């Protein structure tokens, strides 16, 4: 039972936004399963649908602009789309917590950090103010900030410390599932290194499920177990770290890696992906990546590629693998 409890399962999630009567296909047919203690990295560029996927888990997509077209998300075996408002409130910040991208705007400037950490503890644990504040102090110390600073305000902290506070808030109620939306993007690299170390330590300690949203493949290599590469609302390739870093198959994944400067070979030429991310209101027919793909075949602009499992852990959405898996084209 315990194994079932600490899992996150997203099944066939499709989310649309309706803007000026036009439909934006933000997320289409996304499937993600994360077992207890594992971290799933969701990678993609701006507008790929990463954050919409994350917000859906908390049932926080902005209705009515957003519309959950289909799909189920199981948290502890319960579908979040079927939960009552009361059940949702009980889940958010308790069983499922989220670390938002920008620590500068996700903290309340007129409340002390202690109050902000204690707020969730009071609501979900029903403890006294004093006890909640004590627990807030412990949380601060856990993320490496002296407990005595509970009565400080966010503006008295640097960016790295604010992000630690945000992490402390998320972890205050000991969540089973942690969603981290680009938790280190706004931080400097030496501070990022500190925060990533902290996240890795917490993972080991608490055995939680983590969904890590990032555009940085370096961070994925550091903290994730499984990776999904997202493009124009779909997961186009998904596998273990080894599947993606040693054995990638999708041309878009290839393009992402080739776009990164190689730290060891500074003369290596960058090979950017030609063209731009498509307009999500007006996605190309067939495979959404085909206009930018150097391997595109006639069927790519006609038919949507089906899921092709290359191994027990690795799948790809690409016409190149319709007939053969062995033929390494990329």
């Amino acid at each position, binding site marked *: 039972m315990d194994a079932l409890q600490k899992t996150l399962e997203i099944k066939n999630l499709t989310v649309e936004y309706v803007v000026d009567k036009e439909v934006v296909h933000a997320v289409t047919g996304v499937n993600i399963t994360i077992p207890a203690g594992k971290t799933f990295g969701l990678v993609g560029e701006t507008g790929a649908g990463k954050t919409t996927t994350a917000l859906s888990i908390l049932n926080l997509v902005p209705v009515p602009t957003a519309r959950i077209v289909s799909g189920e998300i199981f948290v502890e075996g319960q579908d979040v789309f079927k939960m009552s408002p009361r059940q949702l409130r009980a889940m958010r910040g308790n069983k499922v917590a989220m670390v938002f991208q920008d620590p500068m705007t996700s903290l309340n400037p007129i409340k002390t950090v202690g109050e902000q950490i204690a707020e969730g503890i009071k609501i979900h644990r029903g403890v006294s103010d004093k006890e909640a504040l004590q627990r807030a102090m412990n949380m601060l110390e856990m993320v490496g900030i002296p407990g005595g600073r509970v009565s400080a305000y966010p503006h008295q902290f640097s960016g790295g410390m604010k992000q630690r506070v945000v992490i402390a808030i998320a972890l205050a109620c000991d969540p089973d599932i942690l969603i981290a939306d680009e938790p280190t993007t706004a931080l400097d690299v030496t501070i990022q290194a500190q925060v990533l170390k902290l996240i890795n330590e917490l993972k080991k300690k608490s055995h939680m499920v983590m969904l890590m949203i990032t555009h940085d493949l370096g961070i994925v290599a550091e903290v994730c177990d499984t990776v999904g590469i997202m493009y124009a609302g779909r997961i186009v390739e998904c596998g273990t770290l080894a599947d993606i870093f040693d054995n990638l198959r999708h041309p878009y994944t290839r393009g992402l890696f080739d776009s990164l400067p190689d730290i060891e070979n*500074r003369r290596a030429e960058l090979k950017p992906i030609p063209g731009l991310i498509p307009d999500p209101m007006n996605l190309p027919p067939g495979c959404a990546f085909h206009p930018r793909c150097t391997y595109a075949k006639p069927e790519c602009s006609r038919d949507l590629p089906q899921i092709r499992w290359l191994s027990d852990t690795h799948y790809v959405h690409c016409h190149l693998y319709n007939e053969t898996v062995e033929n390494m084209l990329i």
Partner: protein
Amino acid sequence: MNSLGKILLEVKNLKKYFYVPAGTLHAVDDVSFTLEEGRTLGVVGESGCGKTTMGRAILRLVEPTSGEIFFDGRNVRKLNASEMRYMRREMQIIFQDPFSSLNPRKTIAETIEEPILLAKLIPDSNKRFMRVLDLMDIVGLAQRLINTYPHELDGGRRQRIGVARALAMNPRFIVCDEPVSSLDVSIQAQILNLMKNIQRDMGITYIFITHDLSVVNHFSDDIAVMYLGRLVEKAPAEALFEKPLHPYTEALLSAIPVPRIHNRHERIILKGELSSPINPEPLCRLAARCNKCMDICTREEPPLIEIRPNHFVACHLHKPMGS
């Protein structure tokens, strides 16, 4: 990549202080270096280290507190306003944020044309229009976009406008202030390649300011590392990445998340956070965070010295050449 080229830019003891209620903020503190024509100097450091202020001070977009800047042998700080305006044709800047650095009410054509018009470079309007088309072509903007406004374009295209605008004056030197930081990786690679090709074709000298060490390594010939207003290390890119001498550079390099899963290296994690740049004490500014901190580090500020040819470092761990 021999270092025998002509020196285009020489910066001597450049300082920029800001006077704030809490005291004097040392944004750029006694920075000196030279840059040869056609090369790229990458400037790296974390937020608040003074890299942007330094770039702007070199162009006198903020007036330096003291120090000298020689561009092609001329003392830039001695120029009067009209001479400086003329000089800026040769010294341009590309800004960080393509979303806020473009006038939302001007079309692409008007935006690119503006500097040419202001400098009265091409009086004939037809010729000027041809020049705009030419510039759009150089930076890879399709001609059909000529009458579009910035809000209609994505970040990559907007940054191409920023590049075209900087190139409009035929400059010899461009300060690029985090030109790709706000772009997605696939677009970032497009812009970096564009800027490299422009340098190859036109022989432009760059100062490339960034916090992204993989990008700076790829893009630069020499790299300068800044920490709290100080230049702490400067060396050719290969040398710096192969054997960083300053403990801060070492930690910075080891902190880069590397996109691979084998042969991962051990991290050096610096303690704490940046100290305040307001009224700094005369000691090594990294001392409190440094894991190699010695007694002398908390007493004396280390000067920038040449340890090996072209490899400069400001750290008490290292002795000058030949001593």
